[in-house]
């Protein structure tokens, strides 16, 4: 993900979770979180359980997120033993009081001046310092968001958890239906798979496939089809849903079988190599322990050595044994016009 992609991702997230954007520039955004986003991101469990119990009006947090090139300030970024300099998740703190260096308090008027608390160290070099003066009582936390930063990973986790299952309808095509008043719609099961190839190293493949619940036809470019379509959560007028012949479960089994056939045709030299490494390691371990076990003086010693050898063998197995894991990233039911 480059800088622009990260920014686009973050802005989509903020929009979808109903956050209030106070200020925006090509390199940063100042945002007051929605209660939902606040719960997900700020780790304030006590605060939220208090709000939930008392029904008090929640005060969500405000962040200034910068997408610019992170500061390469040798001293601060190298973590040169500034206690607590990492407190503000990823922001290069650098004031004499690091814990507060990247918190601009709008309550004191002095800080709203140019070169106030914002530029004290947290603002990245080469990025415009936000010029706004936050409303009194707001605390604005400044953070760098880049690919790999803890904050972005948090957003990743959030969307993985909250973008799991959908049920959607494509807008009917314009024009008159050949079937007079109604459009026949077919239900599709769309599944995004992640396939992980693992031994002592790992790589992943992603598949966004779909299968028609009416005919069992499989579309390997289903994700692209979804992206091109206009989708809505509400069933459009004049739509007639065709009866499905496949249950989602049966359809899933078809998809999996199809995927397995495809995977089987793949290149397994990585597994063959991993296996030969595994055997090689095993042989070495046995060669090492056998004579020791034979020469052991007491039964106790012998047993201890046997256990150690077994443990080591199990470790090798754990490390090298080639395996493939297919996991479902997310999936949904999609209704498309047409009979297929």
């Amino acid at each position, binding site marked *: 993900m480059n800088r622009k992609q990260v920014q686009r991702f973050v802005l989509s997230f903020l929009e979808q979770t109903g956050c209030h954007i106070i200020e925006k520039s090509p390199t940063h955004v100042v945002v007051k979180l929605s209660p939902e986003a606040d719960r997900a991101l700020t780790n304030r469990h006590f605060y939220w359980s208090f709000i939930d119990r008392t029904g008090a009006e929640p005060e969500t947090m405000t962040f200034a997120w910068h997408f610019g090139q992170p500061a390469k300030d040798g001293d601060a970024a190298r973590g040169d033993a500034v206690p607590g300099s990492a407190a503000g998740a990823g922001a290069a703190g650098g004031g004499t009081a690091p814990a507060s260096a990247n918190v601009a308090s709008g309550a004191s008027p002095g800080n709203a001046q140019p070169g106030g608390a914002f530029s004290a160290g947290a603002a990245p070099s080469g990025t415009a310092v936000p010029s706004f003066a936050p409303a009194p009582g707001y605390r604005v936390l400044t953070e760098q968001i880049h690919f*790999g930063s803890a904050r972005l990973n948090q957003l990743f986790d959030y969307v993985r958890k909250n973008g799991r*299952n959908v049920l959607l309808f494509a807008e009917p095509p314009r024009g008159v239906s050949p079937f007079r008043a109604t459009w026949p719609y077919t239900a599709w099961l769309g599944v995004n798979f992640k396939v992980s190839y693992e031994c002592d190293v790992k790589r992943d493949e992603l598949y966004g496939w779909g299968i028609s619940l009416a005919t069992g036809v499989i579309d390997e470019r289903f994700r692209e089809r979804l992206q091109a379509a206009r989708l809505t959560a509400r069933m459009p007028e004049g739509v007639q849903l065709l009866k499905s012949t496949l249950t989602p479960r049966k359809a899933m089994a078809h998809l999996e079988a199809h995927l397995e056939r495809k995977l089987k045709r793949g290149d397994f030299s990585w597994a063959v190599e991993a296996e030969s490494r595994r055997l090689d390691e095993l042989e070495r371990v046995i060669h090492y322990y056998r004579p020791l076990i034979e020469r052991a003086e007491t039964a106790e010693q012998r047993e201890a050595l046997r256990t150690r050898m077994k443990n080591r063998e199990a470790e090798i197995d754990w490390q090298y044994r080639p395996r493939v894991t297919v996991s479902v990233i*997310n999936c949904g039911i999609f209704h498309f016009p047409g009979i297929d």
Partner: protein
Amino acid sequence: MRTLHETLGTDAGRRIHPLVELRYDRTAFEELERRLERNGPWDNWTLYQLAWEAEEATRIEHFHELQALRMLPRFEPLPHQVETAKRVLHDMRGRAILADEVGLGKTIEAGLVLKEYMVRGLVRNALVLVPASLVLQWVRELNDKFGIPAIAQKKEHHWDNPIVVASIDTAKREPHRTKLLEREYDMLIIDEAHKLKNKRTGNYKFASDLRKKYCLLLTATPVQNDLSELYNLITLLKPGQLGGESDFAATFVADRRVPKNRELLQEALGRVMIRNRRSDGGIRYTRRIVTNVPLRLSPEEQALYDGVTEYVRTHVRSAGVDLSGALALVTLQREVCSSRDAVFITLVNLFKKTEEGSPLRDRIWELVELIRRIKANTKAEKTMELIRGMNDKVIVFTEYRATQNYLLRFFAEHGLQAVPYRGGMNRGKKDWMMELFRRRAQVMVATEAGGEGINLQFCHHIINFDLPWNPMRIEQRIGRVHRLGQTEDVHIYNLCTLGTIEEHILHLLHEKINMFEMVIGELEDIIRTFEREETLEQRLARMILEAEGDDDLRSRIDRLGDAIADLRDSGGRKTAEWRREG
């Protein structure tokens, strides 16, 4: 009702290739079924798409390309560190000894490897075992540099955190021990692993019994003296890598400390151990500019020095002390060269230990009287002058606490801001002192040089108020400032009182061994080889006590220096070579 497995197939033993097991994680699908049954609730379409984007972004495309670096845009590792991480991942399959020389960033290499495995999802939990004094430093480095959420183990439930840093001495004790041995760690990292060289120790057994997938052992001194120790370390990592114990002895060991079949051994070691050396090139250092500052003691100071010297001579001859006693006596002479405060404390202690009525007591008291007459410290005044002249941050090293306290008082009296730094301070205080030095004070007065984690690259001046006799300690002092990341030339000032043993020592270290300007790291090997039988300090003390006057001492020291220089030109290089992996 049908079970899921009836239609979707069982997971157990399912194979996609004769060698490859296939597993499914259908959690998200099972949830879809439940939601269909209950008619919702349904997630947001954009979030659904963002989830794909998140997976696409974090997807590991290739088995071998290093992924961690794109996650760490603010982190700039050095080329040899990246190279090392790659070799550990690909050639060594995640089990390796990282044996870089001090200061080349073993911690960074280990962090990089750990991060890479975490990014790939191959490591979810890891245990980092280090000496107690390094726990917090590790936690900080992993968090700050790598964004790895490591915590220091303090309470029992901390073991449940995915990434834990703990002291090995704590971990190996009950009740922790049992708990840890029941677990499986995706990665185990052990710092200062040379302490595990003896396979009969509890630490060794514990480390060996821990269940781990990947394992990194970090040490700067992989082959301290003994080949069998190296063998033990490798056995911890990959038993049998160097063959059985007897094979190893037959193939590689000529004598306990002398290897044979060097090339073969080198090749075998290269498969489990990476040792980057400063002299390998590619790692650029700034210059060291060394200035010796000769001083004449004031008549009062000289009187004390002569008095102490006389005392030492007569005492050694009369009582026939052993070597450790002799070392203690020579220390008196060294202390006089530092400050009257340093020697005073030792004399008082000596006085207390001496029997009542012994004639020595009177002699000691006479020396204390000489101390009282000293009003000024020639070295301290010179130091003040130097500091004023350079008008920049400077770190002053001394061997003695008493001298340190004296200097702090002396600087304060002259309106110079100075902060102390010593080994006994706890971590938090050390950090605080470092921070004060960085931001507020011009001067730091330090007694400890070996402490890890003092990185003072923002400072370019070192004053050696007095010199340790152990060259490695001097190297450590300089290494605090003159290290990777230092962008300026480093100025080193050696204060030296003429006509004292200090002059001899400086002559040996500077002119004979030329240690101040030696390629960094070279010294380590030479000294280690040289000190097999007796430490340099012990040799020097013996020479001083045995020498018949100053000229004799000088020629003895010259011979010692020649011997070291020879070693450097021939033997030192050889021992250095066989350890260097190809």
